[in-house]
């Protein structure tokens, strides 16, 4: 950034007390994250080991993909409740495909993604063309999807899958499991797309003020459609990776994941009203949740208490955000 282009008043504010306070508030998430990490490292020797870092990342990966899709949807002011179900349908589909075509790993991945994209497409059409409220459209998909997942398996999990199916999630490249790599690539790619491309700008514009975006020539319907399609696609990918990790197709896979994804987006600073939020924020929110899960596990905190802590965190994150926004105004 060239300093000459910046008007004088902005520069004067730098390093003043208000500026520092504002920065602290803006970086609250990052600060909390660092504090959490410091705390767990102090309390548990195992926490900061490389193996444990891998554990955190591998646990985060399937959530990361749906949280990324959810970020885009929430940026437009919508919500995608169906991602958990889409994970189940995609997992079951890929398991069925793997069983019928052992050895054809790419086909199983492609089938899961295709199923996810299809579900996203239906959501997208309902929201952008039929004008069904996103909450309702994706609630319908959530319900129908969990039914379909059972239909595919005939009411039971699909087991006895070929060993190749497990290679999708369990192979290491450059010392990292594939899902972790997919997660990192996903975050970087979408982060750049949302910040650096016209498409990203239009998503923000439609969520910020749909009428204004339309008057400016943005095709709001197409933009809306695209975010649901992307969300579905990523949920499909997440589904096949989850199924591959356990080398089976349980029809209840992914149940309730949509709420964790929404939590990550919200903790990451996005507004459910649309127009505000970032991919980086979501990534940070997600890592915070996963780090907490992992660290609390290591400290042998019961799972019920972990849920309580997570619940408090979600509300606290939004309360701080609302408070700091008011302060700024």
């Amino acid at each position, binding site marked *: 950034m060239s300093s000459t282009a910046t008007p004088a008043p902005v520069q004067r504010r730098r390093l003043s007390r208000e500026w520092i306070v504002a920065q602290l508030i803006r970086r609250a998430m990052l600060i909390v994250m660092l504090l959490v990490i410091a705390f767990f490292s102090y309390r548990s020797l195992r926490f900061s080991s490389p193996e444990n870092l891998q554990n955190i990342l591998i646990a985060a990966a399937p959530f990361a993909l749906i949280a990324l899709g959810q970020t885009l949807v929430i940026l437009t002011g919508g919500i995608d409740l169906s991602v958990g179900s889409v994970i189940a349908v995609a997992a079951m589909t890929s398991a069925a495909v793997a069983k019928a075509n052992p050895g054809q790993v790419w086909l199983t991945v492609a089938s899961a993604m295709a199923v996810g994209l299809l579900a996203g497409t239906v959501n997208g059409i309902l929201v952008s063309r039929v004008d069904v409220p996103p909450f309702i459209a994706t609630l319908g998909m959530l319900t129908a999807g969990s039914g379909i997942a059972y239909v595919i398996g005939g009411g039971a999990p699909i087991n006895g899958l070929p060993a190749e199916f497990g290679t999708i999630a369990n192979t290491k490249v450059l010392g990292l499991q594939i899902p972790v790599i997919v997660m990192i690539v996903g975050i970087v790619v979408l982060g750049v797309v949302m910040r*650096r491309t*016209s498409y990203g700008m239009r998503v923000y514009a439609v969520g*910020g*003020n749909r009428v*204004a975006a339309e*008057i*400016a020539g943005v095709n709001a319907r197409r933009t809306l459609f695209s975010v649901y399609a992307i969300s579905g696609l990523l949920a499909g990918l997440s589904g096949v990776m989850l199924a591959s990790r356990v080398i089976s197709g349980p029809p209840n896979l992914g149940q309730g994941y949509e709420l964790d994804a929404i939590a990550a987006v919200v903790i990451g600073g996005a507004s459910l009203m649309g*127009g505000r939020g970032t991919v980086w924020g979501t990534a940070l929110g997600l890592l915070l949740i996963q780090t907490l899960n992992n660290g609390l596990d290591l400290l042998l905190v019961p799972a019920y208490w972990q849920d309580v802590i997570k619940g408090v965190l979600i509300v606290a994150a939004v309360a701080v955000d609302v408070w700091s926004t008011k302060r700024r105004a």
Partner: protein
Amino acid sequence: MVVDGSAVLECRDLRKSFGGVPVLKGVSLRLELGTVTALAGENGAGKSTMMKIAAGQYRADDGAVFVRGEELAAGSIRDSHRLGVAIVPQELASIAHMTVYENLFVGRELTTKLGTLDRRGMSREASSMLEVFGVAIDPDARMGTLPVGLQQIVEIVKNSSRGAKVVLLDEPSSAISEREVEGLYRVVRQLRDSGVAIMFTTHKMAEIRDLADRVVVLRDGVLVLDEAMTAVSDDDIVTAMIGRELEDLFPALHTVPRESDVVLDVAGLNVAGQGGPDTAETTIDLQVRRGEILGLAGLVGAGRTELLEGIFGVRATTAGRIRVAGREVKRKDPAAAITAGMALVPEDRKHAGAVMGLSVLDNGTLPRVARFSVAGWLKGRARSQAVGEAMASVRLRSRGLGQDVGTLSGGNQQKVVLARWLTDHVEVLLLDEPTRGVDVGARSEIYRIIADLAAAGMAVVMASSDMTEVLGLSHRALVLREGAVVGELTRGDLDAVDVQERIFRLASGLSPRTDEKDF
């Protein structure tokens, strides 16, 4: 039909109705390049509808819009874009969370060779775009942090920089301060000099004089004046805007007895955020006697609604004293106001008045729920009877108390909103736009009800942007501007021939006519 080449935008015989109520009744007008046209008229004259049709946002029921001889596809924002017509709506169409340059470039972003956004380039270009208009705005600032006036200018720059040949501004100065208006004027003049055709809606005389080359006046959906500014006087314009006959709409007003006691006594009331530059010093004093109807006149944004809400306690007030029948009422406490005998019938029936999905009975119970319940349980019989009587007293036409309010006509909804207060004693009735969205027949009925309630001993304060309403139904009227009382008119004044013009001049801050002696 042959299209004349000199007009860049031509509207032909536009007609439009909303819900069976005609808003435009065949309006034709032409805009020429390099000119500024003022589209004037009172509230509800059809100005905004006209604008939106010309911009392709609304579809006209009949008639057509031609841009450079080509017919605009009705109801298509895209088509109007293509043809170079841009509208800056009254409610700003900016994206608050995005930066100024993002707002300027969304929809036609600049990209680098790699296909990524060229943020630095957009920021730089935004800077020079704004510089052309002589406004110093940081292109990297978030739109929402700018004052409304600057947001407006960014909107205008955005639209005109996309090659628009016709720029339509809907009430451009309605939400901005006096100081910001100068910047707006400068931008509009600059656009005109660069050969753009501009049309703006307004009801402010000063703005028409300062900015327009030509003035078009709409009244009740009909074009009543279309002249070059050099050919008309201010008086011609005012007459054209308000020239309607006082219809035979109002009941005969009873006289208020001289010895009648003061029921509502407001002293030194400062309504938060009201009063233009010196907010803190703007205070309001008013008194209303038993049986008296006090009208509040003024333009949109003059602070009528805010004053009523301040008195009733739903809006914050910072200083002052309110008394009802001699007893002091706690400020900022609607429950105390209700207990003291105040009732407010708000302007926005749908959002603040009635709960549309609830029945007449439930709506009638709401303001005095405590009175109709024992230990939290509703007293069925008592409330049906009380609400039934109240509704009957205003001659509500419904299928019974169980009918949803949302399914009633506008006039009957208004009766419910009013009558729901009448289940108990009311001392002070505060009415905000009592006949908005009500058809003419029901209107005169509502006027009669208001007059009857006053005659029975209530003190009534009625805010209205409909001047005939203030003239026809007030014992006395106050004119508001920028949250302050700028004039008081007695019944005698209200009957004078030139009263409409006098109110208009007070309300718009125009100096009184030079030949006027006693003002």
